[in-house]
C-alpha cells in the first residue's frame, strides 16, 4: 500500500504544482488585487466542481450541490473511459493516440443503433453500447492490424485514423446518408434523434445531465483493473507490454494479446462516444467537437496508466472542468482547467526525466556504501 502511494506521489505533486503555476498566472495577469482574484477564482472552481457547500449550508436548496457534482461526474465519466482506453493500450506497450477517432465512431454507432433500432429499454441501451464498443474496437483494430501485419507504427496510424474518422463521420456520414430527416420542413443538423428507450437514464432528474454513464465508467475502471491485475490474460497482457521478447519465449501469443488489448482500448473509447450520444446529446450532432479522446492521453499519463489512477485523475479533472466555467464570473477564462491539465501532464512527463536523474544518483550510493545489500547491476553505459 505504501508502495502504491509512493507511485501516485509524482502525479499528485505535478497536479499541485500546475495548480500553483496557474494560480500565479491568474494573479499576475490582473492589474490589481491579483492574488485575491486568483484565490476566489479557485474557490469558484472548487464549488463549481464539488458543489457550493457554503451556499448550501447557508440555506440554499440542494440543487446547488447536485447540479455541479452532476456536471463534474458526467465529465469524469467521459474522461475515465477515454483515459482507460489509452491506459489499456499502454499496458500492452502501444501508444493509442487514436481514442478521439475511436470515440467518434462509437458515438456514431450508438446514434445509429439508438435511432434506427426498435428495442425495449432493457435491451436497447446495452445494444447501443455494444454497437459503439464494436465500432471503436474495429477502428482501433485497424491500427493494430497495420502494426502487427505491416509494421506501421501505431502512433502514426492512430493519428491518421483520427482524421479519417473525423472526415468520414462529420463530413460525410452525418451530413449525408445518416442525416436526420427534418420534421415539418425544419432543418436539423446531425443524425436522427435516438429513441427514448436508448437514452441513458438521468440519475438526478432534470437537475443535471448526470446519467447512467457515470457508474458504468467507474465499473469499467474497476473491471479493467481486475482484469489486468487478477487474471491470467491480464498478466499476459502486462508481460507483453513490459517485455515482449520474454513473453514470446514464455509461450504467450504476443500478437493476439496486443491485438485484443488494442481492440479493448477502442471499445472503451467507443463507449465514451456512446455515453456522450446516449447520455447528453441525444443524437450525433452536426459536429462532435468535444476532444475527450485527446484528453484521455493526459488523464492516462497523470493517472500513471493505472486503471484506478485513471479514474481518480478523471474525477479530479472532471470537477475542475465543471468548476472552470464558474471562474468566468471573475473574468477568468474557462479554459484554465485545460491549462492546468496540460501543465500537469507536462510535469508528469518531466517527472520521468526527474526520476531517471534520481535513480542514477541513487545507483551510485548503494553500490559502494552497502555492498551486502542487493545492488542493481552496474549499468554498462
Amino acid at each position, binding site marked *: 500500500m505504501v508502495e502504491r502511494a509512493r507511485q501516485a506521489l509524482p502525479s499528485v505533486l505535478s497536479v499541485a504544482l500546475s495548480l500553483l503555476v496557474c494560480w500565479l498566472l491568474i494573479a499576475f495577469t490582473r492589474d490589481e488585487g491579483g492574488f485575491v482574484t486568483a484565490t476566489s477564482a479557485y474557490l469558484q472552481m472548487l464549488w463549481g466542481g464539488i458543489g457550493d457547500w457554503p451556499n448550501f449550508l447557508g440555506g440554499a436548496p440542494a440543487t446547488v450541490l447536485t447540479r455541479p457534482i452532476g456536471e463534474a461526474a458526467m465529465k469524469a465519466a467521459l474522461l475515465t473511459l477515454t483515459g482507460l482506453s489509452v491506459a489499456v493500450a499502454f499496458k500492452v506497450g502501444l501508444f493509442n493516440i487514436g481514442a478521439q477517432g475511436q470515440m467518434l465512431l462509437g458515438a456514431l454507432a450508438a446514434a445509429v443503433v439508438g435511432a434506427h433500432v426498435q428495442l425495449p429499454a432493457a435491451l436497447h441501451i446495452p445494444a447501443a453500447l455494444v454497437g459503439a464498443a464494436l465500432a471503436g474496437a474495429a477502428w482501433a483494430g485497424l491500427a493494430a492490424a497495420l502494426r502487427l501485419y505491416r509494421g506501421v507504427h501505431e502512433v502514426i496510424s492512430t493519428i491518421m485514423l483520427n482524421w479519417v474518422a473525423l472526415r468520414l463521420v462529420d463530413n460525410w456520414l452525418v451530413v449525408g446518408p445518416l442525416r436526420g430527416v427534418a420534421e415539418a420542413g425544419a432543418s436539423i443538423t446531425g443524425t436522427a434523434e435516438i429513441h427514448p428507450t436508448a437514452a441513458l437514464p438521468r440519475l438526478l432528474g432534470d437537475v443535471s445531465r448526470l446519467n447512467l454513464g457515470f457508474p458504468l465508467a467507474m465499473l469499467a475502471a474497476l473491471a479493467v483493473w481486475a482484469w489486468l*491485475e*487478477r*487474471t*491470467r*490474460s491480464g*498478466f*499476459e497482457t*502486462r*508481460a507483453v507490454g*513490459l*517485455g515482449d*521478447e*520474454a*513473453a*514470446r*519465449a*514464455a*509461450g*504467450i*501469443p504476443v500478437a493476439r494479446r496486443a491485438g485484443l488489448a488494442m481492440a479493448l482500448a477502442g471499445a472503451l473509447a467507443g463507449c465514451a462516444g456512446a455515453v456522450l450520444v446516449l447520455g447528453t446529446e441525444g443524437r450525433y450532432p452536426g459536429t462532435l467537437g468535444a476532444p475527450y479522446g485527446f484528453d484521455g492521453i493526459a488523464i492516462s499519463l497523470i493517472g500513471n496508466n493505472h486503471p484506478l489512477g485513471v479514474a481518480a485523475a478523471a474525477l479530479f479533472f472532471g470537477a475542475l472542468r465543471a468548476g472552470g466555467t464558474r471562474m468566468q464570473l471573475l473574468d477568468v477564462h474557462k479554459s484554465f482547467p485545460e491549462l492546468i491539465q496540460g501543465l500537469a501532464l507536462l510535469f508528469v512527463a518531466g517527472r520521468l526525466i526527474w526520476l531517471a536523474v534520481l535513480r542514477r544518483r541513487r*545507483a*551510485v*550510493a548503494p*553500490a*559502494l*556504501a*552497502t*555492498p*551486502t545489500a*542487493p*545492488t*542493481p*547491476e*552496474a*549499468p*554498462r*553505459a
Partner: protein
Amino acid sequence: MSLDIHAGELLAVVGENGAGKSSLMNVLYGLYHPDSGEVSVEGRPERFKSPRDAIARGIGMVHQHFMLVPTLTVAENVVLGREPTRWGRLDLERAVREVADTCARFGFTLDPRARVDTLTVGSQQKVEIVKALHRGARVLILDEPTAVLTPQEADELGRVMKDLVRAGRTVVLISHKLKEVLGVADRVAVMRRGRLVAEVRASETTADRLAALMVGDAPRAVTDEPAPTGQAPGEVLVEAKGLHALGDNHCPALRGLDLTVRAGEIVGIAGVDGNGQRELAEVLTGLRRLTAGQGTLLGGPLAGLTPAKARERGVGHVPEDRLRRAVVKAMSVEENVALGRHAQPPFARGPWIDFAGRRERTRELLAAYDVRPPEPTLALQAMSGGNQQKVVVARELDARPRLLVVVQPTRGLDIGAVAQVHARLREARRQGAGVVLVSLDLEEVLALADRVYVLFEGRVTGEFTRPDYDERELGRRMLGAERAHG
C-alpha cells in the same frame, strides 16, 4: 576500500559477482561518483564528473559490450568524437593515417579501412583498445575482456596486454577467470563485498588460493566436480537431420545440422561465437523457424514448433539474453517465476491468478536456490545478475522439463552461483532430462557434457564423447577443420 595501481603493471582485479569490481572501475572511469574518499592520478586528487574527465587524465576503458558503430570503419570508430578536420570538414585520410600509426606503435594488425561489422569479435575488441590508446590512455581498464573470445583469441589478447605493459602502459584487468588472470597479470587484487581483501603477486599464488580468498570463509565447492558418471543414455528426445535456418541478419545461420539428444545426457554445443549455436537453441525452443530440414522433438515434429508448443511438450529454456528473453525485469520476482507457467496450478486457478499459491511456490524456490534477497514481491531488476539467473534456472527446472536448452547459463556469474547452476544441470540429467548446453566457455562444456558437438558455420564439424576430449582437436574443429583426423 583503497587500491593503488602502479604505472607499467598489469593488475588483475578479481572477485565474485557483486563484489564491487565494476563499481570500482566505474568510479575510476568517472561513471559513478564516490560518496566518500578520493581518486588520485599521479598523486593529484581528481574529481571526475564524467568519463570525459577520466579520458582527459589518461584513463581508458574497454567495456564488456563493445561501444562501436558496426557500419563505420575501424578508423572512423577510433576517431569518433574527436575527428580530425580540415576546413571544418572531416579529414578521413588523416584519420586513417593516425589510426594506422597508433596500430603500428603498439603492434596491432588492424586494417583502418575495414568496416567494423566485418571483423571478428576479437578484432573488434582490439579496435576498442586502439580507440582508448588513440585518446592517450596510459591506464587501460578491461572489463571481462575474454568473456566473448575463443581460447585462441583470449591467448592473443593476453599477448596484447603484455605488449602494452612493455610499452609502458598500465593495464587493469577485471575478470572471473582465475587461470587466465594468473597467466598474464603481475599483481592480483581480490575484492569481496566491496572491500579489498588481498593483494598478491601473481607468481606467488595459485588459482585455488585466489578462489578461497574471493569466496571467503563460506565452505563452497569451487573446484571442478568429478566427471559425470557414464550412465546409459535413455530414449531419443531430439532427432534432427539437415537443419537449416536463417539468422537475425537473414543470412543462413544453420546449414545442414544433424543432432541427436537422448534422455539423461548433457549434450554440449561448442564453437566460436556466431557459428549457429544461438540459432540452434532458438530452433529447439520454437523461437526460430526452420527453412529446411526435419526432425522430431519430444514426440512431435520440429517444423512448425512454437514456444507455446515447445513448453507443452516439456522443453525448458534458459536463454542467453536473460533480461530480454528470460525475464520481465520490471515485474516482481514471483510474477517472473510464474511466467510461462502462469496458466497452470499453483500459479492460476481457472482464469484467475492464484496469488497465494504463487507466493508459496516462489518462497520455496527462492529458499531452495538460495536466492538473495528471498523477497517474492521485489522487482526482479533490483536483484543482482547472479540472483536473477538463479530465479530463471529455478523456474525452468521447477517445471520438470524433459528437454532443457541452456545457453551461456553461467556467463557473468560468480563462482558460488556457477557451482550451483552446474549442480542443478547435473541433477536434471540424473532425473532423466536431456540437457543441451550451449556455452562459449569450453571448460564449462567439457566439465559438464557427456557428448560434445562442435559447430562451425552452422554445421557440426566434430562430435566427441566423454572421456575422449582432445582440447587441441576440439579447437581445430571450432575453427573449421573437417573430420580429417576422425
